[in-house]
C-alpha cells in the first residue's frame, strides 16, 4: 500500500512540475494571440492593450500562474482566446474523442498483437515465425505519416470509408443507434491506422517476452513433467510474461499519444491533436498549455495504472 501511495505522490509532484514548466515555457514565447490585431491599422494600440489586460495577459508571471492553477482546480484551465470560452470544457469534448480513438486503437492492436506474438514465440524459427518477422519489419520501416496519408488516399479513391471527420454532415439529427454506427464508421480508418503503427513494436516485444519465458528453466522443467502444452502456455508462461507485457503497455502509451496527434490531423478526427496545432499557430497560449498538461496527465495516469497492475500481478514487487 505504501508503494502505491509513494507512486501517487510522485506522480502528483511530477504533474505539478510539468504544469509549472509548460506554463513558463509558453509565457516566454514571443508574440501572442493579438499580433494579427496589432497589424491592423484601424485598431489602436490602446484597444489591443485594453483587451489584453481584460484577459489578464499583462499581469506578472506568478500571478498568472496562480490564477491558472486555481482555474485548473475549478476545471477551467484558463481561457481560450480563439474560441472565446474557458479551456476546460473545450478540452473535455476533444479529450473524449481522442480517448475513444486511442482506446479503440489500443484494444485493436493488443487483440491482434497478443495472439500473433504468442504464436510466433511458440513457433520460433519456423516458417510462420519468419514470415511474421518479415511482415513486422516491413511495417516498421513505413513512417506513420505515410501510413496515415495512404489511408486517406484509400478513402478518397475508393470511397469505402469516409475521408475524415467523426460524423457525417447532418449526422446529429440521426437517432442514437445510427449515430453510433456513423461514428464507428468514421472511426475505422484512424483506429486502424494507429493500430497498424503500434502493431509491429508490440508483436516484437510480446514475442521476445514470451520467448524469454518459454525458454526459462522452470518452464522446461514443467514440460519435462509432462504438463500439456495448452496448460503450460496459459497457466505457467503467461502469468510470468505479464510483467514485461504490463511494462510494455506503460511505454506504449507515450508513442500512442504522439502518433494520435498525427492521425487526428490527417484524418480530421476532432481530438486533441488538431486543437493543439491550431492553438500553436494562433498562439492561443492557455489552450496549448492545457492540451500539453492533459496529455501529460494521460501519460502519467497510464503509467500509474500500469504500475499498479504490475504490483497486483507480480508478487516479487510486493516483497521487495
Amino acid at each position: 500500500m505504501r508503494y502505491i501511495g509513494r507512486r501517487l505522490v510522485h506522480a502528483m509532484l511530477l504533474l505539478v512540475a510539468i504544469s509549472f514548466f509548460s506554463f513558463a515555457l509558453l509565457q516566454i514565447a514571443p508574440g501572442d494571440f493579438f499580433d494579427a490585431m496589432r497589424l491592423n491599422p484601424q485598431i489602436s494600440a490602446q484597444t489591443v492593450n485594453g483587451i489584453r489586460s481584460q484577459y489578464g495577459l499583462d499581469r506578472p508571471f506568478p500571478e498568472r500562474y496562480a490564477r491558472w492553477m486555481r482555474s485548473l482546480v475549478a476545471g477551467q484551465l484558463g481561457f481560450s482566446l480563439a474560441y472565446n470560452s474557458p479551456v476546460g470544457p473545450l478540452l473535455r469534448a476533444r479529450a473524449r474523442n481522442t480517448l475513444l480513438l486511442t482506446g479503440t486503437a489500443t484494444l485493436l492492436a493488443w487483440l491482434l498483437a497478443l495472439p500473433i506474438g504468442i504464436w510466433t514465440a511458440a513457433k520460433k524459427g519456423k516458417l510462420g515465425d519468419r514470415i511474421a518477422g518479415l511482415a513486422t519489419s516491413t511495417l516498421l520501416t513505413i513512417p506513420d505519416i505515410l501510413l496515415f496519408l495512404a489511408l486517406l488516399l484509400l478513402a478518397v479513391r475508393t470511397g469505402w470509408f469516409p475521408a475524415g471527420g467523426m460524423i457525417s454532415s447532418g449526422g446529429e439529427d440521426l437517432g442514437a443507434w445510427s449515430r453510433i454506427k456513423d461514428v464507428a464508421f468514421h472511426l475505422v480508418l484512424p483506429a486502424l491506422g494507429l493500430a497498424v503503427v503500434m502493431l509491429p513494436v508490440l508483436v516484437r516485444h510480446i514475442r521476445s517476452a514470451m520467448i524469454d519465458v518459454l525458454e526459462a528453466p522452470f518452464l522446461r522443467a514443467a514440460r519435462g513433467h509432462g504438463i500439456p502444452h495448452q496448460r503450460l502456455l496459459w497457466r505457467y508462461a503467461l502469468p510470468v510474461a505479464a510483467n514485461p507485457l504490463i511494462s510494455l503497455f506503460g511505454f506504449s502509451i507515450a508513442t500512442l499519444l504522439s502518433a494520435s496527434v498525427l492521425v487526428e490531423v490527417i484524418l480530421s478526427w476532432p481530438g486533441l491533436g488538431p486543437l493543439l496545432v491550431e492553438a500553436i499557430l494562433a498562439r492561443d497560449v492557455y489552450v496549448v498549455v492545457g492540451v500539453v498538461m492533459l496529455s501529460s496527465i494521460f501519460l502519467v495516469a497510464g503509467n500509474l495504472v500500469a504500475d499498479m497492475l504490475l504490483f497486483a500481478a507480480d508478487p516479487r514487487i510486493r516483497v521487495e
Partner: protein
Amino acid sequence: MTHRHKLWAALILLAGIHAIILFAGFFAPYDYAAQDREMPFAPPGRIEFFDASGELHIHPYVSIPRAADSPPDVAESAANPYHVYRVRFFVRGDSYKIAGLFPSRLHFFGVEAPRRAYLLGTDGFGRDQLSRFLYGGQISLLAGVLAAALCVSLGIFIGAISGFYGGWIDDLLMRGGELFLALPWLYLLFAVRAALPLHIAGWQVFLLLVCVIGAVGWARPARLIRGVVLSAKERKFVVAARGFGASDLYLLRRHVLPQTYGIVLTQMALLIPAYVLAEVTLTFLGLGVTEPMPSWGSLLSSLQQYYVLSSYWWMFLPALLLIPVFLAYYTAADALQERWKSVSL
C-alpha cells in the same frame, strides 16, 4: 543473414542514398523552386524505349502527355497524344552549386531544352517533384542527422556527469530527465516549438528546428549512457588507474567513455530516422521550415487536400521514395543492436 551482413548492406544503401541526396543538384534535373506555370499538377512521364515513330532503341525516352493546345513537334505525328523526348545523360541544365560553393551546370539526365521531363510529375506550382524530393532530402536528412548528433552529445555529457559523480547532481539531472520523459514526445516537441518564434524563416528556422528536436530528446540517451558509466566506473581497471593518480577527465576519456561507443552508435542509428520524421512532421503541420526551403514535409503537406488526392494521385509517389531511406536506417539500427547485444561489455 548475420548482423554483419545486414549492417554492411544497410550501410551501403545508406551511403548510396546520402550520396545521391548530397549531390542533389547533379541528380535532380531541375531546380526545386523552378516553376512551370504551364504544367501544374502534371502527371509523371513514362520511361520507354520507343521513340516518337515507334522504333526501339537502347537509350530511354520519356513520354509526357501533351497538353491539349500544345502543337506536335517536328517528326511527331499529330495523332500521338504524347510528347516523346530522348533522355540524355550528363546534360547541361539549370545552374546550381555543389555544396553551396562550386557552380556547375552538369546534370545526371535531362531532355533537350526547352522541353522538360517530370519523372514524378509536378505540384500545384509546376515544380518538378523529383527535384523537390532530392533537394528536400538535403534539408530533412541534414536536420535529422544534426539533431541526432546534438541529442546524443547532450546525452553523453549529462549521462557521463550524472553517472560518474553521482550524488545530488545525479539526482537532479535524472529528475529533470523524468520531466522530459513524462510528456509524450510529440507533445513536448510541439510545446517547445510553440514557445519559440513562429514567423522566422530560412536558415534560422532550420537551426531552430535542429536545436529543438535535438534538445528535447536528451533524457533517454542520457539514461542509457549513465547506466554504462555507472558500471564502467566500478571496473577494476578504472580503480587501478585512479590508484596511479589519474584525474577524472583522464578516466572518463580513456576508460569510461570508450565503453559507451556501442550505445552511442545504436542510439544514432535509431534517432536519425526518428528525428528526420520529426522535422517532416513539423514542416507538414506548418511548424517547421517554410517555403521556399524544400523539405519532405512540405512535399507531403499538399496531400492533405481532398482534390489533390482524388485527381492527382501521383503526388503520393515521392512519399513512397521515403521508404527505402527508412528501411536502410532501421536495418542498420537492428544490426547494430544485435551486434552490441552479442558482445559482452
